[in-house]
Structure formats: C-alpha cells, structure tokens
C-alpha cells in the first residue's frame, strides 16, 4: 500500500479502508472534482435476513491486474480523468465497514461522476473476488454472482 507515483492506485488489503487519504492522494492542483464510492456491509442480503459480516477471497495478483485494467479503461473513456484509486478489502469485513472504495479525480464533476460509476460497475463484473456471507449460525457463498468478463466488454 505504498503511495504510487502514477495516477492509478489499486490495492486489495485486509486492513480497514479510509477515504480521506485516497482523496488527498487523488487531489491534483489542476483538478476541482473528486467523486468517491464506498460499498459497505449491509445487515441483510438476498439470501439472508440477517448478515453480520462478509468475507472476501481473491487471488491478489489477478485482482490487482484487473483493477489496473478497470482504471485504464476509465481513463480511456474519460480522458480528462486525472487520478483513479480502486481499493478492495479481503478477509472478514464487519457490518458497516467499507468493502470497496472507488476514488476518481478530474478537472470537472461530470466526468468524475461518470467514471466513478463506471469503475464500480466494471469492478463487480471483472475482478476475481468471492464473497461469503456470515449470519447467525453459519456462513455461505453469496448467490449474487456474475460470470467474470473482460473489462473491454463492460
């Protein structure tokens, strides 16, 4: 999680996620807009009325490569985008904690909102991550799954 010099910062980490360091990193003197998305653990799911935690599994090198591709594609579609950070928790994540952070900085807000939305939508379909739901008395893989696809097809 060392700060990168390039304007893309991807990470999969077992540590809690915080937005302010990413927004500080993303902010550029020539940029006036930073849009972020945080996905957080909800107390219920399609499968379970009560969810107490999520647990994510991944292959870190494959996940990092795909996160980089998502950021590149966002920059290709919205060339004004200046900085993109995509961080995902792995391991157990408690209720209310953030599971994923998307941060996009750009000179103006329109492309920051659009690219931010693209990044989270693409991340969910292209990055190798699997979610177990923990509920009172057990745990099970989430049934809210999608076949993994390439970033170019999102």
């Amino acid at each position, binding site marked *: 999680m060392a700060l990168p010099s390039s304007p893309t910062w991807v990470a999969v980490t077992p540590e809690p996620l915080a937005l302010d360091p990413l927004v500080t990193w993303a902010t550029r003197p020539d940029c006036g807009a930073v849009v972020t998305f945080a996905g957080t653990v909800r107390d219920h799911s399609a499968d379970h009325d009560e969810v107490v935690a999520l647990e994510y599994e*991944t292959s870190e090198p494959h996940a990092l490569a795909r996160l980089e591709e998502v950021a590149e594609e966002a920059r290709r579609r919205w060339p004004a985008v200046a900085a993109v950070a995509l961080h995902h928790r792995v391991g157990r994540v408690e209720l209310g904690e953030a599971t994923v952070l998307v941060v996009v900085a750009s000179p103006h807000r329109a492309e920051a909102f659009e690219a931010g939305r693209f990044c989270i939508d693409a991340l969910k379909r292209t990055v190798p991550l699997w979610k177990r739901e923990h509920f009172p008395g057990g745990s099970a893989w989430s049934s809210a799954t999608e076949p*993994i696809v390439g970033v170019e097809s999102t």
Partner: protein
Amino acid sequence: MARLLLLGPAREAAGVREDEVAGDSLEKVLAVARARYGEAFAAILATSQVWVNGEPAGPESPVAPYDEVAVLPPVSGG
C-alpha cells in the same frame, strides 16, 4: 505439470487452493481435476471461467509445464 489455482467456491469444493496436474491441453487438465475433486467441484467448474496464465482460455488451449490454470467461478466482489 500445470499449476492449478482454485478460487472461491471452486477452492472450497476441491478442498485445495493450489495443486499440480498433468496434461498438455486445458481439456485434459480439467478432466484430471474433475476426476480428482469429484462432482461438487465438477458442477462449479461447469459454470466457471478458466484462465491460462491470466488469459481466458478454451478447451483446446495448450498447457505447458508451469502454466497457471485458474478456475474462476462467477464473481461477487464490490
């Protein structure tokens, strides 16, 4: 021997995350895996994508020693 990488539900069904499997095509490697890990794994494999060295691959794809064959069930990140 190819290096198998079994992820998420595929890892759980196989009972192992990494393994070594003989076979010079993806089809042959996966046939060995099916036989080795049983029906629950085969059912998950049927809905999974398979990558060779990080690239999507089909049954005919050649597999060389040390190639990584990754089994990726439908994902649920975010």
